[in-house]
């Protein structure tokens, strides 16, 4: 009898549980209404991943093509088998340069053709031909050869073993080779001009497939009926519309009135309001670290005679010295003289997060103990005194009185430039101008059109230029090689525009990249030392990263953004009828 009761109880529980789950699991594909997301930028330029080179295009491509190697949204690291990635695992041969990638066998294009190694190979063939207009030099320089072993196995041989090879494969996507072969053939150079780029007939392997593109207005994708990774067994949203809304005020009003489903970066001016309304249950909100860093690049070299960092034989070229910023004590004084709290309130509405170096606190390579400069005006002034900049005539501006590189009597004057039209940048540097002038600097502030600013930045003719910089996700600490190593100090086209050259830093970056065995902790220690050098030497003043605030309508069920991806489960978002 007891046994009977137990069986009956279990059956009852099963029935009850099934009743609870069934409505969710049994949802039909596309039953969840469309997701409408604002695009603050311009039109995507292409839906062909081989030639894509702008963020808007990638925003769309990432919804309709799988990555080659997926990024785990929980750990923010490349991982075999990660959702949205074609690679299920990989092996590294003993030579350290031969990688064998095992691919999933359950992904298919929208025309039913399976996604295979040949599709990745087509991407590699086109890209490595060097004939496309897309910038993929890092990939071209790294990959020596590749071979399709079978439909679901691909071997890539790299030119040299190092610890960043997986990062190198970041731009790789499988493309529908059977279609591309027919559409583009081997005319890789002419790929840009093909109408198919904006009218793809086949996509797949992701939650959505291409539907249509209305120039200047919107791009629309529809639920992919063959998506195999759907959280709820099928893609629930009917589709995804990437709608151009070119004014931030209007964008937020559209969100407030429910026209937009989701906003992936609430403007600073609206944050408090959205947070408060989110707390009151009016919206769903999520805050996560931003992918950008604000910095002020300090030109260490002589701006009147910009030089490349290295000569043809790889030997350092004398850079001369910036009359003021050539002295590290002045650069440090600028750091100590920055009152971040004041800047944060005045320019970032309190949303900024101070950073000490070229690394976010959430990155794996972030070293414990790496602290931003504290605000210490006394220390800043004593450093300036020590550097030989004192105010001998009592006019409030210091002059060179025994300084290292400026002429005697020359004022401690700098021109700081930033991009015009960006209100937070303009506010930031206006506040910093006041703070630094208090120390005895004479800061001239110029707000310059962005294109002009970038041309001065790469020409290396400036004193100090402040802009934003996007950081890679997943984090690739070796990226600092492109900004702080002398090989990147190329007048007119390199980004070590401050002409920084520190032999120990150069050594650390190279060693961390090429460490045999690539032990993560050892590399972390190496990068940690590199970040500390950058912090202390201050070729940049790292001002702030920040948090971005994401917001969604309460009608969106299953909205569960993570730091590693706001849309990782977009296939499960269910938009209730309003």
């Amino acid at each position, binding site marked *: 009898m007891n046994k009977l009761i137990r069986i009956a109880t279990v059956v009852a529980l099963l029935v009850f549980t099934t009743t609870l789950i069934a409505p969710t699991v049994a949802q039909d594909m596309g039953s969840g209404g*469309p997701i*409408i997301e604002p695009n603050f930028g*311009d039109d995507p*330029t*292409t839906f062909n991943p081989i*030639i894509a*080179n702008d963020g808007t295009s990638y925003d769309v491509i990432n919804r309709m093509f799988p990555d080659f190697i997926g990024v785990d949204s929980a750990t923010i690291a490349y991982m075999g088998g990660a959702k949205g990635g074609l690679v299920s695992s990989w092996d590294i041969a003993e030579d350290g340069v031969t990688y064998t990638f095992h691919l999933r066998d359950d992904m298919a294009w929208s025309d039913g053709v399976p996604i295979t190694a040949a599709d990745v190979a087509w991407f590699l063939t086109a890209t490595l031909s060097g004939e496309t*207009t897309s*910038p993929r*030099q*890092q990939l071209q320089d790294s990959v020596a050869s590749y071979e399709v072993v079978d439909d679901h196995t691909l071997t890539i041989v790299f030119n040299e073993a190092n610890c960043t090879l997986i990062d190198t494969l970041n731009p790789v996507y499988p493309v529908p080779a059977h279609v591309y072969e027919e559409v583009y053939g081997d005319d890789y*150079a002419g790929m*840009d*001009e093909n109408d198919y*780029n*904006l009218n793809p007939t086949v996509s797949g392997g992701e939650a959505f497939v291409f*539907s*249509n593109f*209305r*120039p*200047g*207005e919107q791009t*629309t994708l*529809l639920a992919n009926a063959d998506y195999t990774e759907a959280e709820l067994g099928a893609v629930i949203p*009917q589709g995804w*519309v990437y*709608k*151009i*809304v*070119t*004014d931030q005020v*209007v964008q937020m*009003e*559209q969100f*407030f*009135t429910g*026209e937009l489903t989701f906003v992936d970066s609430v403007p600073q001016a609206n944050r408090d309001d959205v947070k408060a309304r989110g707390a009151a249950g009016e919206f769903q909100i999520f805050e996560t670290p931003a992918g950008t860093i604000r910095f002020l690049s300090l030109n260490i070299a002589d701006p009147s005679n910009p030089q*490349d960092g*290295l000569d*043809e034989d790889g030997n350092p070229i004398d850079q001369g010295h910036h009359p003021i910023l050539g002295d590290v004590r002045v650069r440090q004084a600028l750091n100590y003289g920055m009152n971040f709290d004041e800047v944060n309130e005045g320019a970032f509405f309190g949303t900024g997060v101070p950073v000490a170096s070229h690394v976010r606190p959430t990155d794996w390579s972030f070293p414990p103990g790496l602290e931003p400069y504290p605000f210490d005006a006394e220390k800043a002034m004593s450093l300036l005194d020590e550097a030989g900049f004192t105010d001998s005539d009592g006019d409030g501006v210091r002059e060179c009185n025994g300084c290292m590189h400026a002429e005697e009597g020359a004022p401690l004057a700098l021109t700081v430039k930033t991009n015009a039209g960006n209100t937070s940048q303009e506010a930031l540097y206006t506040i910093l101008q006041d703070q630094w002038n208090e120390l005895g600097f004479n800061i001239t502030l110029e707000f310059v*059109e*962005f*294109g*002009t*600013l*970038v*041309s*001065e930045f*790469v020409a290396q003719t400036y004193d100090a230029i402040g802009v934003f910089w*996007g950081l*890679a996700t997943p984090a690739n600490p070796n*990226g600092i090689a*492109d*900004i702080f190593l002398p*090989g990147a100090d*190329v007048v*007119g*086209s*390199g*980004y070590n525009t401050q002409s920084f050259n520190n032999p120990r830093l150069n050594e650390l970056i190279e060693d961390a990249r090429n460490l045999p065995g690539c032990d993560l902790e050892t590399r972390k220690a190496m990068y940690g030392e590199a970040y500390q050098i950058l912090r202390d030497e201050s070729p940049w003043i790292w001002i702030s990263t920040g948090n971005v605030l994401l917001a969604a309508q309460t009608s969106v069920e299953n909205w569960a953004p993570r730091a590693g991806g706001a849309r990782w489960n977009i296939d499960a978002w269910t938009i209730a009828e309003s």
Partner: protein
Amino acid sequence: MTKYVIRRLLQAIPIFLCATLLSYLLMALAPGGPVEILAFNNRMKPREREELKYILGINDPLPVQYLRWLLGDDWMRWDNDGDGLADSAVFFIDLYAPKLNDSGKPLIDDSSGEMITRSLPPGTQRGILRGDFGNSFYYKRSAMEVLVERLPATLELGLTSFVVGITLGLAVGILSAVYHGRLFDQLSRIGAVIVNSIPNFGLGLLLLLFFGSLLKVLPLGGRCKTLLDPSCVPLPERLEYLILPTIVLAAGAVAGYSRFMRASMLDVVSQDYIRTARSKGLQERRIWLRHGMRNAFIPIATFLGPSITFLLSGSAVTEQVFSWPGVGRLAVNSVIRRDYPVIMIVVIYAAIATILGYLMSDILYGIIDPRIRYD
């Protein structure tokens, strides 16, 4: 009249060429180039940025760039043997380009000390005089295609605003003159000052916030309803999207035309022939409408041409606020990106619109004022 129009059109050719030359010079000499903007990405290497300059053709001297844009480059560098690489070129064009090292500098052969070069592909552009406007640096497709995509939206908004602006403006101007010094006149004058004082972006945002966000009776920008369906329904079915941007663009025109029309009418009614008409015992209505209005139109015609140009070229600010996919927004984005082919096709479009606009003004003189004869 026909001869006059033909003569004016022929005279416009050198003006058009001068306009393109000046615009090209201004654009190319402005600080910052397309590569700085397109390649502002720390993942890109110096070599890639330098390569991009060759791909976009902005490494050539300015006169060569302009000639290429005007006349194409298929006659500058060509392929005789059909191997896909150029083997002949005119004297002022390089047949080879240097191979570049990682720093984007020319590679030098250690043994000979000479620059290592590579062959270039033959020229493929035909130039604007043969109908080839080149490919957009940013959009990676024909600049003409990009412009044509945006034209319907601009024409839709421009023409609507023009019709509304001129109709209301002239009507208000005439009534202000008729009721000179009375309440209507005072109110229209104050209204014109207020409208002229509010910048378009401010007026646009205010209207959007009031009608779109607060009252929710009109859409918050855009040109068509956001649907999964690719189609944008015909204009009569989506007039609500036109209302607010039309008000913003037409408001200035109403204010301007009403003032000009009022002043012109008042000037005309003080003329002798109006006094004569009155003394002949004609009705006031007939005097105002038949004798006054027609003559008052003559100075107004001066402003019609430039207005048409302005409205056909799109209004960047209004299009930006209302997310209107028109030429104005395209032009501003292209200037920011230094997308030379798109900037130039917009310049050509605007130049043609200007020339035609002024020509239209002159023709209007002839129609309105019987004293003017062009033949």
